[in-house]
């Protein structure tokens, strides 16, 4: 059955749109869930109200963001079947169990304990409440793990054979799950999530300091946010490089597009900026670094040969410009985050940032950086994998639902776009309002308050 190609393109756009929307929220809530654990732990250990206030403040924000992540995540679980039924049918024996593990070990766990986290403080002992927060944080990390195992298998398929009727049968689960590609990519994603959250937290702290409010909480947010970023960003850059290593090794078409390298080069130079032109198969406005810098970056060698796009058959090439630019943007943001994190953390932990408005402003404005880097990174990974859905084995045109008509996908795409736009706009507004109100706005009864009917009672209230 030859698929309706417009339907395939629309399905690709729909998947790209829905998965991009989805990733924004876990990128934030994975780190936030962990931070809530830290805050609750500190609050229980030290009894200092600043930690409890921060916890309650970020818990409300977590609720909104987590909810949006959940509802958009459910869409993904079904989209494999709805728009990519051939992929589901043929690689289901491998992808299905991986997603089943995700839904069991992660999704179900985090969703169940989320209820306790949001509503159960006064129904369980403090340690159990902290335990519930830990379960939610654990669930989010396990989700990342299983999803990345699944995606990594699509990028670098291992441990399988293909039957005569085209079914991918697993032969070695250990190699599917416990391989080096999985390790570097899972780490890269989880680090991305924690880095994203640390910048959001630091930015919130900076914002409150700029407005001269909630100073105690703001100091904690800046110190902890920037401190964590200062440690994690360099590690993330290293893992980014390691991820690049696997791309060089296993996905030559992708690395050639990422580097904007049209011809094989030995040793290779490095293109810093260019405008790739697929029709003429050249780069316009190219700014490049000389050899052997490209070989060093791609293969850690002074003499290696690096593949060019022209060595890849035309039908096996990904979209060059998108892949090239997405990658550059991600790396550029990574460098910017490094500078901000190190400079910011230095001042936050020494003389303090209260009077340094010229530092506070960029930190405040840095909140979108993690999201942008995560999105462009995923765009690089997924667009760069084209025209393959399972790299080297199943093309995207073969993976789509064969009976799907363009009209159906137009409808679904339009509906997703409008509903997602609606909930995103308002979700952002509500989170913004919560952020603006700040943590000092609500005073709290002590932990283990004997009066569960007034969990938000005003301090000094004797009732």
């Amino acid at each position, binding site marked *: 059955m030859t698929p309706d190609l417009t339907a395939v393109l629309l399905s690709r756009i729909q998947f790209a749109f829905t998965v991009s929307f989805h990733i924004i929220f876990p990128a934030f809530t994975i780190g936030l869930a962990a931070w809530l654990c830290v805050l609750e732990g500190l609050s229980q250990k030290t009894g200092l109200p600043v930690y409890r206030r921060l916890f309650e403040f970020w818990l409300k924000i977590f609720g909104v963001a987590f909810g*949006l992540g*959940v509802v958009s995540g459910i869409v993904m679980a079904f989209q494999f079947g709805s728009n990519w039924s051939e992929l589901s049918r043929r690689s289901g024996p*491998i992808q299905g169990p991986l997603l089943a593990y995700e839904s069991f*070990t992660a999704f179900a766990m985090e*969703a*169940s304990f989320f209820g306790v986290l949001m509503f159960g403080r006064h129904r369980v002992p403090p340690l159990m409440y902290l335990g519930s927060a830990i379960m939610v944080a654990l669930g989010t990390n396990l989700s990342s793990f299983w999803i990345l195992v699944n995606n990594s298998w699509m990028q670098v398929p291992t441990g399988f054979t293909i039957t005569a009727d085209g079914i991918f049968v697993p032969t070695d689960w250990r190699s599917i799950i416990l391989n080096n590609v999985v390790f570097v990519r899972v780490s890269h994603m989880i680090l991305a999530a924690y880095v994203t959250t640390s910048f959001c937290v630091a930015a919130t702290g900076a914002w409150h300091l700029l407005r001269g409010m909630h100073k105690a909480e703001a100091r904690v947010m800046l110190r902890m946010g920037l401190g964590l970023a200062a440690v994690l960003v360099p590690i993330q850059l290293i893992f980014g490089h390691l991820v690049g290593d696997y791309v060089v090794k296993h996905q030559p078409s992708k690395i050639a597009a990422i580097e904007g390298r049209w011809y094989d080069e030995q040793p290779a130079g490095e293109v810093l900026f260019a405008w790739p032109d697929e029709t003429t198969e050249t780069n316009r406005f190219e700014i490049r670094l000389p050899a052997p810098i490209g070989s060093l970056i791609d293969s850690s060698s002074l003499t290696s040969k690096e593949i060019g796009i022209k060595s890849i058959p035309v039908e096996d090439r990904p979209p060059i410009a998108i892949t090239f630019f997405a990658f550059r943007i991600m790396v550029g943001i990574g460098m910017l985050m490094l500078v901000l994190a190190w400079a910011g953390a230095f001042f936050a932990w020494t003389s303090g940032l209260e009077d340094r408005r010229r530092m506070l402003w960029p930190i405040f404005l840095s909140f979108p950086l993690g999201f942008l880097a995560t999105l462009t990174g995923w765009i690089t990974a997924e667009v760069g994998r084209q025209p393959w859905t399972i790299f080297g084995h199943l093309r995207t045109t073969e993976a789509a639902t064969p009976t799907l008509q363009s009209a159906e996908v137009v409808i679904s795409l339009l509906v997703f776009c409008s509903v997602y736009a609606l909930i995103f706009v308002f979700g952002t507004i509500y989170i913004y309002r919560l952020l*603006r109100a700040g943590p*000092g706005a*609500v005073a709290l009864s002590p932990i283990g308050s004997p009066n569960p*009917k007034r969990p938000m009672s005003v301090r000094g209230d004797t009732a």
Partner: protein
Amino acid sequence: MLEFWVGALALSLLLYVLLDGFDLGVGMLFPFAPDERSRRHLLASISPVWDGNETWLVVAATILFGAFPLIYSIAVSAFYLPVILMLLSLILRGVAFEFRYKAKPFMRRVWDMGFVGGSFVAPFVQGTLVGSFVVGLPIDGVHFVGGPFFWLHPLALACGVGMCIGNAMIAACWIIGKTTGDARAFGYRVLPGLAVALIIFLILALTISMSYKLQVLERWSQRPALMLLPVAALLAAVGMAWGWKTQRDHWMFPCGAVIFAAAFGTLAGSFLPYMVPFTITIEQAASPSSSLEFMFWGAGLIVMPLTLLYTATVYFIFRGRVTDADGYGGEDAEDVQLTANSSTGASAVADEARRG
């Protein structure tokens, strides 16, 4: 191994239909509640558990994907438009929990409409899907060959309505057990009508099946043991009626659950050994054993029982009836707007002291 995964799939589906059934049902009954206070109680009764309930849908879908990928690929793509509709309903229903209390009055009405609308549409689509399965899917071996609207069959649509009624009924049972005062009285008020409506639907479904001479009816004559299940449902219905009359709140939900389970079991029992009646068997649809075993030794043997355990734990944590303090307080929305207007935290605390 195969039997295990059939059972696990069946269990997940049943749990989903039962658990998300009652919280979707609460959403359907929501606009008919007597006042805002009861509405808040209704919401509070499901707020801590709705998310966990909904995950059983994803669990069922991923078990299907992993153990029976052929069915997953056929079913989800064949019902393309209904699935999309269901997903959007679940989205609008889901965000309403968080958004409702953070919105200004106009938008609160919008989110409430999404909440209610989503709570009606999702079960309607689910019932329609089930009904279409009963009617039969046009398949050519491994591919679906019907058109985008093949599911618009009278029986399927009737099943959609039936699912809505069933969910509303189990929701009324839940409300009776979990709330007090006006909300509980509301539950008692609506339950009889819903139970009667459900019986009428079941009769209607049977009649339509007979008039279309559906194959599933032959199964019933071939397997008289299936008759035990409707009998169990009947007993449960009697129990529910007696409990309603004598105001035994805690009989309601268990009786409702038995009715659901019996209906589910009857349908599943009629299909076996076919997964897609009557063209694809479980054997044909199954993943290779390496997939089934991989799923079994981790997810099946250890994680699924654990999941059941902590689901039960969460329900236990939130046992007892809903009070005014439960769920999202209405103070939240006013809090946020109030303090957003004041320039420092201190004056906000003073504001609250003045109000409180």
